[in-house]
């Protein structure tokens, strides 16, 4: 019997679990995929928004501004890369200038600090590669970038280090109310009993809510396609550069990532298919065309990868975070600025649990700090040699493009939450994320995973069951 079960191993579920892990509670995170951060938390713009977009007094506005202020400390405790690079909303004409002014006023109402409108000359001094057509911009120095899947992995890992349990490949198929709380039932018939439940199921939060009898939540997926460019292009811009927003979202942005790549996107296209994460020729060319409006220094030949994420757009226009009154908290419709607001959303959820009667007694031994997975690659030569002298596998480079050692890969498989497939290793270590996209190192990493997990080589997957890399031994199929 758990005190609290969090359904959904995304950034909301992860930070909520971590927040709960500081109390004397038995908690678990329930995830349907083979790894955490498999939904919108791994495919979004990786931006910590300053908070000028959302309409004043909405949850989106309040939690964005607060979450954005909390993010730096959380990232530093969790060893997650975070950089306050500032953001710009650029205007190309008078109509855009009006929008920028509107955003400025909204931002001031929302309590965003240091916000100002700058003219072309200053834009150019901040961003020398900006398009000739930019006339002015809204400048938000508090805007930042963070790696969203790293944040999710680290939050859940830190919760686990502090006693939380993670269930993966647990697809919730039903929820029953019992005298003591809830029974959460998986499609395999496994049952988890819990006094309180947090529904942070992202794109599927509406169906999970319905299982608990909350029928008023509706989530419609909105597709967003992205293109990630090589690190050689990471310096094209230094700020996150938005174009003026529309009803469908914040438009196509151009931003550096914390790892030094350049990210372009997203498109915005409503769909009814919650599994449709295809990229499309139209989507990708739209991303390129629009991004080139911001700067002409974009070379599609330097593409590392392209991907599509699904925003969980709720039916109220705002985040839907509320209790059913009996210990079942829904956190639904967490679309943009969900990542930015996530630390504040987690706090808010814990408040709601408290209101429903959950007792929160602080643990004396809660450790908020997690050793970052990238600690080794950023260490000094001297520090590296100390580690290699003790653990020789840190001297053996497996991923040549990103310079990732065997030691780091093994650590990612042993650390909480353990990486158990190739994509999970990639998200934790960056191995396979460079220019060759795993062409050279994939066969080696496959071997390391097989060895660490004690499974046959041919059972190693890309991202869980059904995605086996090889279909069997030669001569045997």
């Amino acid at each position, binding site marked *: 019997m758990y005190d609290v079960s969090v359904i959904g191993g995304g950034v909301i579920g992860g930070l909520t679990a971590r927040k709960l892990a500081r109390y004397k509670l038995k908690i678990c995170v329930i995830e349907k995929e083979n790894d955490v951060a498999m939904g919108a938390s791994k495919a979004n713009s990786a931006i910590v928004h300053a908070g000028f977009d959302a309409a004043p007094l909405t949850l989106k506005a309040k939690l964005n501004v607060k979450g954005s202020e909390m993010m730096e400390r959380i990232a530093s405790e969790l060893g997650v890369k975070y950089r306050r690079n500032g953001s710009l909303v650029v205007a190309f004409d008078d109509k855009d200038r009006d929008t920028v002014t509107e955003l400025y006023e909204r931002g001031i109402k929302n309590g965003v600090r240091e916000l100002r409108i700058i003219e072309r000359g200053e834009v150019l001094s901040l961003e020398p590669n900006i398009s000739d057509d930019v006339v002015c911009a809204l400048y938000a120095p508090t805007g930042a970038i963070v790696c969203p899947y790293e944040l999710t992995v680290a939050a859940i890992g830190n919760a686990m280090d502090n006693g939380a349990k993670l269930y993966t490949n647990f697809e919730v198929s039903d929820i029953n109310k019992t005298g003591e709380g809830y029974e959460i039932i998986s499609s395999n018939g496994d049952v988890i009993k819990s006094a309180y439940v947090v529904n942070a199921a992202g794109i599927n939060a509406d169906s999970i809510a319905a299982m608990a009898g909350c029928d008023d939540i509706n989530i419609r997926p909105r597709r967003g396609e992205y293109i990630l460019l090589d690190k050689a292009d990471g310096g094209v811009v230094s700020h996150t550069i938005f174009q003026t927003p529309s009803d469908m979202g914040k438009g196509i942005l151009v931003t550096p990532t914390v790892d030094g790549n350049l990210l372009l996107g997203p498109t915005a296209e409503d769909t009814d298919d919650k599994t449709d994460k*295809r*990229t499309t020729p139209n*989507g990708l060319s739209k991303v390129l065309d629009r991004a080139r409006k911001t700067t002409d220094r974009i070379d599609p030949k330097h593409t590392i990868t*392209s991907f599509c994420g699904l925003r969980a757009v709720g039916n109220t226009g705002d985040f839907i975070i509320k209790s059913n009154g009996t210990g079942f908290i829904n956190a639904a419709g967490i679309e943009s600025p969900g990542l930015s607001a996530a630390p504040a959303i987690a706090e808010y959820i814990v408040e709601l649990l408290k209101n429903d009667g959950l007792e929160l007694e602080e643990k004396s031994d809660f450790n908020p700090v997690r050793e970052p997975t990238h600690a080794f690659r950023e260490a000094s030569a001297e520090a590296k040699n100390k580690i290699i002298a003790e653990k020789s596998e840190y001297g*053996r480079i497996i991923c040549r493009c990103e310079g990732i050692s065997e030691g780091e890969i093994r650590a990612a498989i042993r650390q909480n939450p353990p990486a158990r497939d190739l994509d999970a290793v990639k998200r934790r270590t960056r191995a396979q994320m460079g220019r060759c*996209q795993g*062409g050279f190192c994939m066969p080696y990493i496959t071997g390391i995973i097989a060895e660490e997990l004690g499974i046959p080589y041919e059972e190693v997957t890309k991202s*869980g069951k059904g995605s086996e890399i090889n*279909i069997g031994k*030669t001569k045997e199929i």
Partner: protein
Amino acid sequence: MRDLVIIGGGPAGMSAAAAARRRGIRDILILERDGRLGGILNQCIHNGFGLHKFSEELTGPEYAWKYEEQVKELNIDCMLNTMVLDIDENKLITATNSERGLFTVKAKAIILAMGCRERPRGALNIAGTRPAGVYSAGTAQKFLNIHGYMPGKEVVILGSGDIGLIMARRMTLEGAKVKAVCEIMPYSGGLARNIEQCLNDFGIPLMLRHTVVEIHGEKRVEGVTIAKVDKSMRPIESTRQFIKCDTLLLSVGLIPENELSEKAGVELSAVTGGAVVDQDRQTSVDGIFACGNVLHVHDLVDFVSDEAEIAGNSAAEYIKGKKNDVISVKLTTDGKIRYTVPQTVTAKKDMTVYFRVSDVYRNVRINVRNGDKVVLSKKKQRVAPGEMENITLKSDMLDNAAELRLELEEM
């Protein structure tokens, strides 16, 4: 301080080391990132290697072994499982391995022999899902030939580079069904002999002017949509067709791995992706040489060995203090000829100039022009982008030349 450090222990690195040793350089170190010498040849278990160099048909590992033996006999130092992380313009090399951790080596001369990598899916921006089952042909080759596992059983191959062609045959021999090889160009980028022996002999269709426009499948590839392309390479909607398969192999080009060369300040060619070199295979940085696929992508390893011998010999002369005559002749091309290696000439001697053409041409003349004067002309029946060509310049052709231009004349 070492006399000569060679980055990479594949065919280029080994051949360069042996050549330099025979020219009297005793202090040579090969740094190899893999656990053994031989580079990518170790996974090329098919035959066809060594016809030019040894007049016999060898497999990749056999060809590599011949050079491994030389390296052993000549007592050349090798560090295996050692990854070079940095080279600076003063020829200070930073590397790492399990035994020594991070360490530096200073060299009088360096030969770059890091090879190349395959162009991955991302660079093509193919739309669709991102399931397991999409591999570059060389990765599949490694799974199959080194690890002994089958990456799939119903295969479509995009790109008709040599590795893709070889893998079409290899997968077929292991019981897979190769349904099609799609090539976006109107001709294959592979060797004619590979089209014959790897596709035609097995009835595998080569679909020219076709590309993969979408990848399907949630967890594992379930199929691909292919389409014919028009003259400007755009897919033609009405020609879209779905092919059921569980694997998509990519053989869409090789990219010389020059990240280290760039760190050392070596000037690179936008056409080859490799260093700009002179007849000695010396780069723009004094004492840094390059050879093999890191310099430009070769079709045949035999030519890699030849090129590496030039680099090894020249590095030896450089270490011994020999300076080139100070002439400076640029080798330029007309576009129909895409590039030459070398790109510059700094010494007066006879030399072989390697080049590639940009399209398939029949009955042509390759002319070498000094201003208005054609100093050399050679007939060719057929030239193709997939087959490297060469022409021999005599030292007297360099007289009174600032630039020699290679032109392709259609007759």
